[in-house]
C-alpha cells in the first residue's frame, strides 16, 4: 500500500492496535474488582469525599461485562476479516472499489432488461418512448447539464444542443460517438499564415459577411483572398466540415463570441475546445438513450 512511506509504520500501527485491544481486556479484568475497606452495613466501599459523599457499591450485572468482552472479540474478528490492521488486506480481501464495482454490476444487470428494449429502436422510436426520455432527462441532468446548462442551450464555449447547428454531425450515430469518445476541436493560430495585423481584421470582416452580420464591406473584400487559408478546414464557402468539427461560419451561431474582436482573437491565438469522453461513466446503452434525448431536442418533440 502507498499509505505509508515506510513498511515499518504499518507494523508499528498494527502492533499498537493489538496491544491496545489486549490492554482493554486487561483493564476490564483488573477493574472488575477492587480492594476496599467497607463501611459498616451501608453497602459502601468506605470511600468518603467532601465529608459526606460516600461511594456505594451497586454492582452491574455480569452480562454487562460480557458485552465489553464481546466488543473486543468483535474487533479481533473485524481486523481478521477486513483491512484495518496496519496495511493488511484482511482475509476477505474487501476493498471499497471492489464493492462499488460489484454494486454497479448488480445495478447494470438489473437494468439490462430495460435497456434491451431500447436496443432495437431507432431515434424516432426512442424519442417517442416516455420511459426512455425519462431516463434520458435524468442522464442529461446528471452528466451534461454542468456544461451545456440544465436547459441544454449551452453558453460561451459550450454548444447549444437545442438548435440544428452541429459541429460534429447531428445524426444519432454522430451524437453517440460524441458522447462516448468525446471530441476535440482544434483551431490552430492562423495569424502567421494570413500575415497578421490588418489581414486578420480583414478576414474577420469577411467571416462576418458570410453570415450576413454587420461588417465593413471594404475590409471583407480585402479579406476574401486570405480566407483561402481558412478554407482548408471551413471549406471554400465557409460552411464548415463536420468530419473535423470545423464550424459553419455562414450561420449566426457564435460559440466563442461574436464580432470582429472575438473572431480576430481566435484567428490570432487559435482555440482548443474539448468535449470529454463518457464511455467510462456511461454504458453504451445509456449513451444511446442519452443521444436520442439530445437528438430530440433539436428535432422537435414528437
Amino acid at each position: 500500500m502507498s499509505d505509508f512511506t515506510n513498511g515499518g509504520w504499518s507494523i508499528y500501527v498494527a502492533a499498537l492496535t493489538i496491544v491496545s485491544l489486549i490492554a482493554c481486556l486487561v483493564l476490564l479484568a483488573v477493574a472488575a474488582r477492587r480492594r476496599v475497606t467497607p463501611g459498616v452495613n451501608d453497602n459502601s466501599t468506605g470511600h468518603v469525599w467532601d465529608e459526606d459523599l460516600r461511594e456505594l457499591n451497586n454492582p452491574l450485572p455480569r452480562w454487562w461485562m460480557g458485552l465489553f468482552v464481546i466488543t473486543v472479540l468483535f474487533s479481533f474478528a473485524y481486523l481478521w476479516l477486513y483491512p484495518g490492521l496496519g496495511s493488511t488486506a484482511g482475509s476477505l480481501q474487501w476493498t471499497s472499489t471492489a464493492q462499488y464495482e460489484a454494486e454497479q454490476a448488480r445495478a447494470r444487470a438489473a437494468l439490462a432488461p430495460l435497456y434491451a428494449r431500447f436496443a432495437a429502436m431507432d431515434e424516432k422510436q426512442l424519442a417517442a418512448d416516455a420511459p426512455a426520455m425519462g431516463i434520458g432527462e435524468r442522464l442529461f441532468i446528471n452528466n451534461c447539464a454542468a456544461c451545456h446548462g440544465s436547459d441544454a442551450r449551452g453558453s460561451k464555449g459550450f454548444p447549444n444542443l437545442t438548435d440544428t447547428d452541429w459541429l460534429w454531425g447531428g445524426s444519432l450515430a454522430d451524437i453517440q460517438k460524441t458522447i462516448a469518445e468525446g471530441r476535440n476541436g482544434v483551431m490552430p493560430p492562423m495569424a502567421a499564415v494570413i500575415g497578421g495585423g490588418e489581414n486578420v481584421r480583414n478576414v474577420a470582416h469577411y467571416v462576418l459577411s458570410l453570415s450576413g452580420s454587420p461588417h465593413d464591406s471594404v475590409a471583407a473584400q480585402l479579406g476574401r483572398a486570405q480566407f483561402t487559408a481558412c478554407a482548408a478546414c471551413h471549406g471554400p464557402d465557409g460552411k464548415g466540415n463536420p468530419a473535423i468539427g470545423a464550424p459553419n461560419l455562414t450561420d449566426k451561431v457564435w460559440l466563442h463570441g461574436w464580432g470582429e474582436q472575438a473572431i480576430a482573437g481566435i484567428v490570432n491565438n487559435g482555440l482548443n475546445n474539448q468535449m470529454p469522453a463518457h464511455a467510462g461513466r456511461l454504458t453504451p446503452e445509456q449513451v444511446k438513450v442519452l443521444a436520442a434525448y439530445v437528438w430530440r431536442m433539436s428535432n422537435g418533440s414528437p
Partner: protein
Amino acid sequence: MSESAQPREEVIWLYEKQQKIYPRAVSGWFAGWRWALVWATQLVFYGLPWLEWNARQAVLFELASRRFYIFGLVLYPQDFIYLTALLLISAYALFLFTAVAGRLWCGYACPQTVYTEVFLWIERMAEGDRMKRLKLDAGPWSAEKLLRKGGKHAAWITLSLWTGFTFVGYFTPIKTLWAEAFTLDFGPWEWFWVLFYGLATYGNAGFLREQVCKYMCPYARFQSAMFDRDTLIVTYDAERGEPRGTRGRSTDLQAAKLGHCIDCHLCVQVCPTGIDIRQGLQYECIGCAACIDVCNGVMDKMHYPRGLIRYDTQNGLTQHLSRGAEWRRVLRPRVVVYSAILLLVSAALLASLALRTPFKVDVVRDRAALARLAEDGRIENVYRLQVMNASEAPQRFRVEVSGLPGVERVGSGEVEVGPAAARWVPVAVRIAPDAAARAGAGAHRVDFRITQLAAAGQAERQLDERSTFLIPR
C-alpha cells in the same frame, strides 16, 4: 467511616450474577389499565400495516424511493421537520406526565413493559405462577420441564418473529412480505430486520426485562429530574403500616401495637423489578402499581381500608394533604411550562399539516454558466426547479418569474409531475439588454411563482421561491 469498627479490607466485585425475578401474577384496577394499554398499543402496532388507504398500504415508509405514506399524507425527506415536532411532542408529553404522576409511561405504555407483560402471561400459561416457576427451575430436568420450557420458548419465538415481521411490514408492503414469508423469499435486509427485531423482542421481554429499565434505559434515569415532592408516586404509607407484623384478622391492633402492614411480602413478590416498596421511593420502581393492586386485595381481606400502598405525593404523605389539596398543587410552574410547550408544538404541527401545499419546489441555479448572452444581447440565467408532487394524483404547474423589471421566462410550457413523483425542470429566464443596463451588473433577486393548475371549481394553490439573477459586467 465509623471509628469504632475495626477497618477490615476486603475484595468486592463490581459485577455480580443477576438474580432472576419471578413476578407473581396480579389483578386489580391498575393491572386492568395496563392490560388495556397493552391491547391498545399492540392492536395499533400489529394491525396498522394491514390497513388499506387509496388502494395502498395506509402507513408505509418506503425507504428506497424516500416516500412516507401516512394515510392521506405523502411525506418527503424534506418533511423531516414533522418528525422533529413529533419527537418534541413525545418528549414534552413524557416530561408532563412524569412531573404530574411519575413514571406512567414506564408502568403502562413502554414497549419494554408491554412486551414483558405479554411474555410473562405466556410464561404463566406454560409454567404456572411464581411458586410453580420457582419449583420448576429448582427441580431436575424432566420430560414435563422440557415440555413446559420448550412450549414457552416456542410461543415466545413465534410472537417475536411475528413482531419482527410486523416491524418490517412498515417499510416493505406487508402483503408482499406475507407472500414472501411462505416461500422464505425475503431480501437480505428484510431477513436481517425480521430476525434482529425478533431477537431484540425475545431477549428484552423474555430475559433482560427489568434489567433494561435498571441498567440500559436513559429515560428511566432522567425522569427522576422531573420529580418533585408534589409528583404522584407509588408509595407505602409507613406511618399507617408500621410496625408491621403478622396477626389474625381479629387481632386488636392497638393492644398488639401493630400497623396495617401484615408483612405478607406480596408487594415484593409481584414487583417486576424485585424491590420492596416499603423502603420508599427507589430508582428501580417503574411505577407499575402492581404492589398497589395486590396490597389492596390484602387490605380487603383484612377489612382494613384500602391504600396502604397507593399513588400519593411525598408532600401529601408527610403533610397529610387531602386529595383536593394535592389536586390544587398540580398546577406548578414546571407543569404549566411543559403543558404550554406541548400545546404550542402540537398546534404548530397541526396548523402546518393543515396549511400544507400538496407540492414542493426548490429552485437551484445552474452553477457552471453564471449567465449567458443570447440573441439580440439578451441575458439569460438558467435554473433547475425540483418540483415534488406530494399527492397521489398527477399535477400540472405553471411557472412564472417576477421581481426584476423586464425579467421573463423563456418559453411558457406547463410542467406535469406524476403521482408522488419529483422532477427536475430546467427553466431559462431572460432579460432584455436595456432592462439589464437599468438594473446594473451584479446579483439581483428574482421570484419564482409556481401555481398548481387546479381542476374546475378548486382553488389554485401557489408557492413562492426566490433565487438570484446574475447580470455580468
